């Protein structure tokens, strides 16, 4: 009887145990190692089966297949090779998790940085028009999270016109446009959501299209101050930093 019960239990016991070696390290299940970049040491991990994480299971991402990966991997790797291993260590980035249809609390997002586990989750299917920018945008969040004292939000906010104020959170507003749309002191509509997003937008635009964006910034007094503010902070982290 005991064996019959055992066989019965084994037959129906098919739920997956989230207890693999990578989970042990960064607390994201169902990942496989795709590549360890010998240029800057980033460990690329892929999710083929998808995952749900977060204290309230609010972060979801679907699994990717090889064609998704082949299409986007080089772009990601080339952009992340802008950062050397020393800089990555300072900003607490070691693991990049690749998946698709990433969402947090039901809202689609291109990336989620997690400094605690030195991990950046990236959505491979994020809009192609902003994909490279998104990578650097999320990198800036990792920089900011690691060095909040260098990028003080109240100091940044004071660079704007006095009649302007940011929303209380990036998702508490409908200012979500990512196209280049220069208004007094801002490069995109999304820049106007919060100070953090404003910084990340300017950083990512400079990182992906320095010449053109720098020319535009020079024409705007507030944007020039904001760029200098970012450079001062970034030079504190890495004195050789260049966009």
């Amino acid at each position: 009887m005991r064996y019959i019960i055992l066989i019965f239990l084994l037959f129906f016991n098919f739920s997956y145990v989230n207890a693999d070696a990578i989970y042990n390290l960064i607390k994201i299940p169902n990942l496989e190692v795709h590549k360890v970049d010998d240029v800057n040491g980033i460990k690329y991990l892929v999710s083929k089966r998808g995952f749900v994480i977060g204290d309230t299971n609010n972060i979801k991402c679907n699994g990717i297949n090889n064609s998704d990966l082949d299409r986007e991997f080089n772009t990601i790797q080339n952009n992340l090779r802008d950062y050397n291993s020393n800089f990555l260590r300072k900003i607490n980035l070691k693991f990049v998790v690749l998946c698709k249809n990433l969402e947090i609390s039901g809202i689609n997002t291109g990336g989620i940085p997690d400094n605690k586990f030195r991990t950046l989750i990236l959505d491979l299917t994020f809009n192609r028009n902003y994909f490279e920018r998104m990578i650097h945008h999320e990198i800036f969040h990792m920089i900011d999270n690691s060095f909040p004292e260098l990028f003080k939000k109240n100091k940044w906010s004071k660079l704007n016109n006095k009649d302007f104020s940011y929303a209380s959170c990036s998702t508490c507003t409908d200012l979500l446009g990512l196209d280049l749309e220069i208004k007094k002191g801002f490069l995109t509509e999304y820049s106007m959501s919060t100070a953090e997003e404003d910084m990340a937008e300017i950083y990512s635009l400079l990182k992906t299209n320095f010449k053109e964006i720098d020319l535009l910034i020079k024409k705007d007094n507030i944007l020039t101050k904001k760029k200098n503010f970012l450079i001062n902070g970034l030079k504190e982290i890495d004195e050789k930093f260049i966009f």
Partner: protein
Amino acid sequence: MIKKIKPSLSEKILFIFLILLIILTLSSFYILNNKCLFVKKIDLNNFKFKDKQNIAIMEVECGKVLIELDSNISPKAVNRFKKLVNKGSYNGSAFYRVIENTLIQAGDIEYGNISNINYSRVGTGKSGLGTIKSELSDNFLFNAGSVAFARKEKFDTEDSEFFITLIDIPIYQGEYTPIGRVIAGIDSLKKIKVGNKSTYVLKPDYIKSLKLLVN
């Protein structure tokens, strides 16, 4: 008067079959219950150690496990490990965390001793000696049998807990402070009890004793 009845041939065959079935059942039961049956025993006399000071002998349910400590890569970590071994702190330490065919973890001195294991707090205990700084190395390959200190999410939080890999886990390279390598007896570690559904093992296997070859 009772007449003696002789069994027919088919009855004799049936009887023999039943006896064989009973023997088979009992022997299967014995084999299933004796997980150490096919584990090769370690005889210390068969080993010649170059550096006797850095050999630790762990005794688990299925036999001895020999660990060669590597103080070149992580001198502080090895020093801490030896200190705890010499104090006997690891004796009775439960393998409370086991990832099947991947790794086993023990060494929670405060809450993970088999004599008074605290299931709700195991994994959070302290040795009382404080934490030590991580000693990471890109030269130490996390092959099967690697022994390393466990840590919290942050570095420099190593204390007494350690894990042993049962397979190659290259992604751990540069992530955990290595202590040494299993040089014999890994099969005994592969028989350590695995938990079901969770990484924490209830009624876990434990370290019977852990000592240095030379104190």
